[in-house]
């Protein structure tokens, strides 16, 4: 698909006046967002500002109390279909999978990525297995494929989760604080990979990140959240200082 100016790219995710509460507490207040194809969007904010909740609503894990979320696919066979969940690659917070000593190997985790598209009752096809094997090899996980997921270091586990999301050949990659608990070298590698996926393979990337410097360096657009949208625009206009000021402002309430 020819892509010229960002403004003309087709819309793939549209949130309209989304609000959400846990119990009596309003976490998100009238959020409206338009994510266009091939955008690289960083979601920033203080702890408890509703970042994870917003991401979960955008990928369809939570239903908003009021407002709507529309997802339109622009890739492959399901072009224009809505909803088309398999086109979203979701990488949850690592802590979710770290809670227990799960008896599951790296290969078994990555294989999960092919589940959604194959439908109920089906077995993995030869193609699925080939894609799983190549993704494991390309992710550099070939030698640990038989090891237990819980025996890996944080950076390695993160790689496994990204490999799992990529097996499904997603259109949008949604990542929730992917660099938490990951060492500096793995972080660097991870950022390179993400930029590559975005620039060369035209993946739309939605990313929650704590690291302010990385946010302003990498992202093309930043959404700063504090129960509502405090800033939504190009990261170049904001810079690290602007981001820092937003943090301070949000912290004061």
């Amino acid at each position, binding site marked *: 698909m020819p892509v010229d100016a960002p403004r003309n790219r087709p819309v793939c995710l549209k949130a309209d006046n989304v609000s959400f509460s846990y119990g009596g507490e309003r976490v998100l207040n009238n959020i409206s967002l338009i994510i266009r194809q091939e955008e690289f969007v960083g979601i920033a904010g203080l702890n408890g500002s509703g970042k994870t909740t917003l991401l979960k609503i955008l990928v369809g*894990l939570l239903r908003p109390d009021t407002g709507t979320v529309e997802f339109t696919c622009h890739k492959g066979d399901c072009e224009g279909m809505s909803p088309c969940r398999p086109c979203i690659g979701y990488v949850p917070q690592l802590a979710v999978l770290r809670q227990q000593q799960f008896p599951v190997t790296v290969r078994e985790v990555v294989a999960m990525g092919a589940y959604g598209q194959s439908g109920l009752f089906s077995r993995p096809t030869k193609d699925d297995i080939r894609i799983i094997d190549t993704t494991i090899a390309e992710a550099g996980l070939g030698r640990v494929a038989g090891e237990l997921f819980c025996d890996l270091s944080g950076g390695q586990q993160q790689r496994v989760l990204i490999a799992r999301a990529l097996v499904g050949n997603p259109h949008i990659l949604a990542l929730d604080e992917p660099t938490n608990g990951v060492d500096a070298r793995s972080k660097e590698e991870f950022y390179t990979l993400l930029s590559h996926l975005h620039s060369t393979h035209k993946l739309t990337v939605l990313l929650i990140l704590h690291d302010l410097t990385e946010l302003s360096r990498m992202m093309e657009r930043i959404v700063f959240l504090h129960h509502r949208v405090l800033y939504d625009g190009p990261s170049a206009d904001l810079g690290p200082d602007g981001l820092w000021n937003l943090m301070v402002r949000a912290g004061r309430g």
Partner: protein
Amino acid sequence: MVLEFLMFKFGVRALIGGLIVAVTCASLGVFIVLRRLSLIADGLGHVAFGGIALGFWTGLYPLYTAVASVIAGSLGIHVLGRLRVASDAAIAIMFSAGLAIGIVLISMAQSAPADLLSYLFGTILGINDNDVYLAAGLGVIVLTVLFLLWKEWVGITLDQDFARVAGMPVTALEILFTILVGLTVVVATRLVGVLLVSSLMVIPAIAAIQLRLPFRRTVLAALCMAIVSVIVGLQLSFSYNLASGGAIVLVTIGFFVITALIGRLWPRVKRELPVEPWEHQCPATVCTEPEEQSDLKQT
């Protein structure tokens, strides 16, 4: 003599029934434990007790009414979940409701039926052909569904959010899973009794998890331990005139102690595992250009 109980017809029936129960319980067990639903089997066991009492009161075959009650109970737990009752609280409510209904119905029947104790504590050596047929029928249903939807169960057990985003009908699967657990509870009731039903599902699974094997092999290990427990337990029960349910569960606990010791005495050293850099910085699923594919084949 070893396995001399097989010389009697009741002994053969007990072994067949026991093996069906062992296989069904242990296959579900690993999923139950990993999803932190260990208490659900116990809760549904008590719901089954209410159903059994209903059978005595109405004069229907108790295991049929038990099947109906566990299905109702499984749906009940999910309805309570929908009403935002915490899952452990929902199980506690079903647990109490089942037991209370059972006790009230039995008190209405004036004299407690003689068979009642056998449902509470299990009498595998006293089961009849009917019990074996029912166990076999339900066992086949449970195992077939478990096998056909294997990847779905792995998906919702390992990472529910991911499964949901990938488009799996997670809520429907969860309800179906609870019903499977309920049916298995009924199958196991005759063998180990309502009070010990969950142990046979959960303990071999916990023991197998201590071994830190890949997923499939963990399920297989649980299966093997459950089968051995039933055979050894039956033998002990027959030789020393012990309650069969208790004997079987004690053997499973023996297995847990052994595997837990293995896990502690030979703990895995956390080591840095060999990982190569992300090749070409480009996973094959998104790199579909022909030249890169040919690169792949060479490596």
